[in-house]
């Protein structure tokens, strides 16, 4: 038992499908949101007590809980940054939707989005499946990445309001995450269909070739979600459509950039090594969240209508 172990601590069966679970910081509580079979929205708060999850708060609404009409169709992805005075810059929320638009919202302007990212007139619209903020190391700098169902990954520099980089991964992009949102952008973890995920080294940008990337295969099914450990950004977890959770460790190469013949610099990406693999269920695990307070404590939920508190041990020895 020298390797880190992925162990289920508590498993709680729900009567609805949970789409996302998140820890409430500085507490042992988790929030789960989803929808009941009859179509009503559900929001529940659970607390970890004595080896079980106790329901603290239960909300059911006839339709989705909403404050503002953000999109015309279902909002597939949401990400927030700089809230609660953490990090730099204005607090913002980004949403990505099936109507192909990516919108950025500022809580100070409640009715309209502050930035809209949309296809050019007459161009095809693709479902946006995931969004992620990053590079927010100063008040002005910020980058937003969006992943689409046709495999497009687009990075927008919000300082210059332009597309900074785009690429196509041939498979729909299920999830995007920068390893840290509030530092100079370092790594981007992209998970896609067809059991692939990509790690991009974002330190060196080449004008033509973009960022260096590393391809990895895992789970033998769609990789639904990839999440970095808050306490160590080289460790991340990926969850799969076959109900498995894999723990990976990224190691940097000897030199992070190299010079090409024409004098330009191109990034060199390292490699990800799998540390552990555990199958928790037979349905896809669609969301995973590390606890920011305790290293290794995490919560995940899947299409099997259950949420699980998962412990990953020995991460401090990795």
């Amino acid at each position: 038992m020298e390797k880190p172990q992925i162990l289920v601590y508590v498993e709680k069966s729900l009567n609805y499908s949970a789409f996302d679970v998140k820890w409430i910081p500085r507490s042992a509580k988790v929030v789960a949101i989803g929808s009941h079979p009859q179509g009503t929205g559900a929001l529940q708060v659970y607390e970890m007590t004595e080896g079980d999850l106790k329901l603290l708060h239960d909300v059911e609404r006839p339709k989705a809980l909403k404050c503002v009409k953000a999109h015309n169709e279902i909002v597939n992805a949401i990400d927030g940054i700089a809230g609660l005075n953490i990090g730099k810059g204005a607090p913002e929320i980004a949403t990505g939707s099936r109507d192909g638009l990516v919108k950025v919202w500022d809580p100070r302007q409640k009715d309209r989005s502050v930035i809209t990212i949309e296809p050019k007139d007459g161009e095809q619209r693709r479902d946006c499946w995931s969004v992620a903020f990053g590079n927010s190391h100063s008040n002005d700098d910020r980058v937003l990445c969006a992943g689409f169902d046709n495999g497009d990954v687009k990075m927008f520099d919000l300082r210059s309001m332009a597309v900074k980089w785009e690429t196509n991964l041939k498979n729909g992009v299920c999830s995007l995450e920068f390893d840290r949102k509030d530092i100079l952008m370092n790594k981007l973890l992209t998970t896609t269909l067809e059991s692939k995920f990509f790690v991009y080294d974002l330190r060196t940008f080449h004008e033509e070739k973009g960022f260096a990337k590393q391809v990895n295969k895992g789970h033998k099914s769609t990789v639904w979600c990839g999440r970095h450990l808050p306490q160590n950004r080289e460790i991340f977890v990926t969850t799969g459509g076959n109900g498995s959770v894999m723990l990976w460790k990224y190691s940097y190469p000897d030199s992070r950039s190299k010079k090409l013949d024409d004098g330009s610099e191109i990034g060199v990406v390292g490699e990800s090594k799998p540390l552990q693999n555990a199958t928790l269920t037979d349905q896809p695990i669609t969301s995973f969240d590390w606890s920011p307070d305790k290293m290794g404590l995490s919560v995940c939920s899947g299409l099997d209508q259950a949420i699980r508190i998962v412990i990953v041990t020995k991460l401090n020895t990795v």
Partner: protein
Amino acid sequence: MPIHVTDYTWQQTSEKILLSLDLHQTSPKNVDIVTTNSYLKVSFLPYIFEAFLCHMINADQSTAQIMKGQIKFDLAKEDHVHWSDLCLKLSREEMQNKRQEAIKDVEEQEKKSKSKKKRSVIAVKDLLSLEQISEDDKVREERKKLIEREKTDFLKQTIEDDPQNNQTQDATSKPDIRRRISSMCSEDGTAVAQEMDYDGDGEDSIYYSSTENLHLKNGNVKIDKVDNGNRKQRKSSSIRKAALKDKEEKRKEEKKKVTTVPPVWENCIIKVKHTTRVFPTPSRESTQAEEQQWLTSQSVHSSAAKDFSSESSEEHLKKKAISLFSNGDYRGCVNACTEALKVNPCMSSLYSNRAAANLALNNLHHTINDCTKALELLTPPTEDNSKSRLLCHIRRGTAFVRLGLLSEGLAEYQAAHQITPENKTLKKDVEKIQAMITTSTDSGDSNEDDSGCGEDGVSVGFHIRTRLGGKTSYLEQ
């Protein structure tokens, strides 16, 4: 019949009977012994020795030995009784009975021993499997215990990981982790976002979680963990100290500043262009090949369809034909109808129109042929196609008459008349033709030549032509 042996010698002790037989030079292989506890039989063909013992013996404890051409029995007495004699002297029947009894006994004994063996074998197997199960259980228990221990250890760490006990963390952590203290954050919670040392030479990286800010209450130093595996060089401690100093200064500066949040963006729009994808479904590598195939086959079909485009060009041609006829271009009309027929050879109206054009051109044979084809297509005769049939009949009739085939022409007109009996002009035409026939037969000029129709015939033909010209110029739309 085996020979009974009677030359045997026997002795007894209080516990045993010692019996010896002469084997008469039979090899030991051929000696067969049957014993029960009151019967003894030794058969070594062609000899046999049989003894109905006086008293009981313990067959299990008795032994037999073959040596020097003799067989020696060591029979254990059941009861320690002095035997007056070895064998009983019994009558034949009694002997038979006893033999049968003995045989039965032997069989029973064999059965018993077999079942005993079986039971013992099963018992052994059961024992083995039970052992295996218990071993597996043990292993499982151990594993469970390990997992439980891991969990409890993990949860215990919560107390030790309390960020308030920053200094004590060193003590509780494992010795093989190298730790480095660095000042990281300021009071208001904004993290020092810039990374300190990372420059690609394998140096330690400071990672920091913005959410960890929440734990900091008084801006204490925070202990960072360091990536074990990748270190190759270490910056000298002096440089690090200098860097730390810089950080301290920065922090102080920041404390003085009031951090301002940037203003709200002014309704900005970024336009993007996606990689084109024909299908609305998400893109997958595994389906790429199939999709490409489908797309290429679709393009092939669409290009083929352009040449073909049956319905539209056919109608176009038909319209053209009609317009050409009305303009007087009968040849053109015929050609157009022919083209249209190439596309759709089953349209009766095309034949009918072509017939009209041919009639106008005086191509009488062609007219007749076209009318015939049109009428074929117009079977079965119904209300709907009566008009069409009417036209065909009239045209054919006209053609016949012009050809001089008056009787056929008459038949046609009569058929036409049948379709529309109320049409007076038709009736008159019928009568005229009948008159023509009678006159031609009267004049004896039964010439069926095209041109030779007699002045009357020709004039009649013309007459009919002009008469019916109006009608035949009516083309089917």
